């Protein structure tokens, strides 16, 4: 595999928040941390962007959506209509989307809320206002989900992969290849992964 060190495709994060100032802030935080960012102002728009209808069936031929893989979704909890929790549930119920890590943000520190989200499969819970230091917690989740898929792909295909570590973060739509029925547990720390730049050596 060519070691394209210089121009690594950035990870793409979809940020969901109904508040305009908050959207501006999260966008800046993410961009400062070298993520590519798309922001939407509601859960239903997030699902649309992800190519999902409300009835869980994937939207057929919207190639512009399929071309843009999403590596992580970060969403506000309190939103009118579909809450961040509702959105999380829909994502986890979708075979094509369930492996995308989801982070929930909330201005309120309510333990039962936090636990509920983690139990539903959220990978992380940020208290608002979100800070730059919180951004460092995102890449490990992205890499963990990629490694898991990579591992499962190897298992299934028994291919001649010569890379034990996570592959370079190219923008492939990996989520659709994932094996099914893999309920993500939030607090599993079986794989403590290094920072993204370490994985470029192959």
């Amino acid at each position, binding site marked *: 595999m060519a070691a394209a060190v210089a121009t690594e495709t950035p990870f793409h994060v979809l940020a969901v928040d*109904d*508040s*305009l*100032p*908050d959207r*501006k*802030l999260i966008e*800046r*935080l993410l*961009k*400062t941390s070298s993520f590519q960012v798309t922001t939407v102002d509601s859960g239903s728009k997030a699902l649309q962007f992800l190519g999902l209808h409300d009835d869980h069936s994937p939207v057929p031929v919207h190639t512009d959506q399929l071309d843009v893989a999403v590596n992580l979704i970060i969403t506000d909890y*309190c939103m*009118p209509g579909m809450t961040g929790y509702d959105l999380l549930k829909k994502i986890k119920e979708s075979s094509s989307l369930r492996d995308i890590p989801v982070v929930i943000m909330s*201005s309120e520190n309510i333990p039962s809320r936090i636990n509920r989200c983690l139990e539903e499969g959220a990978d992380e819970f940020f208290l*608002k*206002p979100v*800070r*730059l230091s919180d951004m460092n917690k995102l890449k490990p989740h992205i890499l963990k989900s990629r490694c898991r898929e990579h591992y499962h792909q190897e298992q299934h295909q028994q291919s001649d992969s010569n890379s034990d570590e996570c592959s370079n973060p190219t923008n492939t739509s990996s989520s659709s290849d994932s094996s099914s029925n893999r309920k993500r547990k939030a607090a599993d720390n079986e794989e403590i992964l290094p920072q993204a730049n370490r994985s470029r050596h192959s």
Partner: protein
Amino acid sequence: MSAANQLAALIANMFATGLLDDQFQQLQMLQDPSAPNFVSEVVTLFCQDGERIIGELAKQLDKPSVDFDRVDAFVHQLKGSSASVGALKVKNTCIQFCELCQQKSKDGCLKTLETVRINFYELRGKFQTMLQLERQVNGFPPNN
């Protein structure tokens, strides 16, 4: 006093009088040559959003039968965005406001709305001065 000095003094004063908290410093840290107007953009959005929300609150509290859940939802929005920009005083007033919504006290809510309004416009005025001074510092003439 130069515009830069005035700007620094203004911001220092806003911190000292509890209008702003360290979240505002987080915003300042996020501004750099690749996003040179970040602070002014967020501040502007906050001011526009705040004005909208205060209008909605007034409308909701003007109804013969007040839907306190709706009022609370709007206060929650303002609380959230004030927290995000470091608008400490406004945020704290919103916290009080939420409690009054829980108590379903129309009088209490109306009084607190007035306080929110006063605090918000005080902050907005200073933000506007801040943005003007920033423009001057960046070499633009002061506008209106």
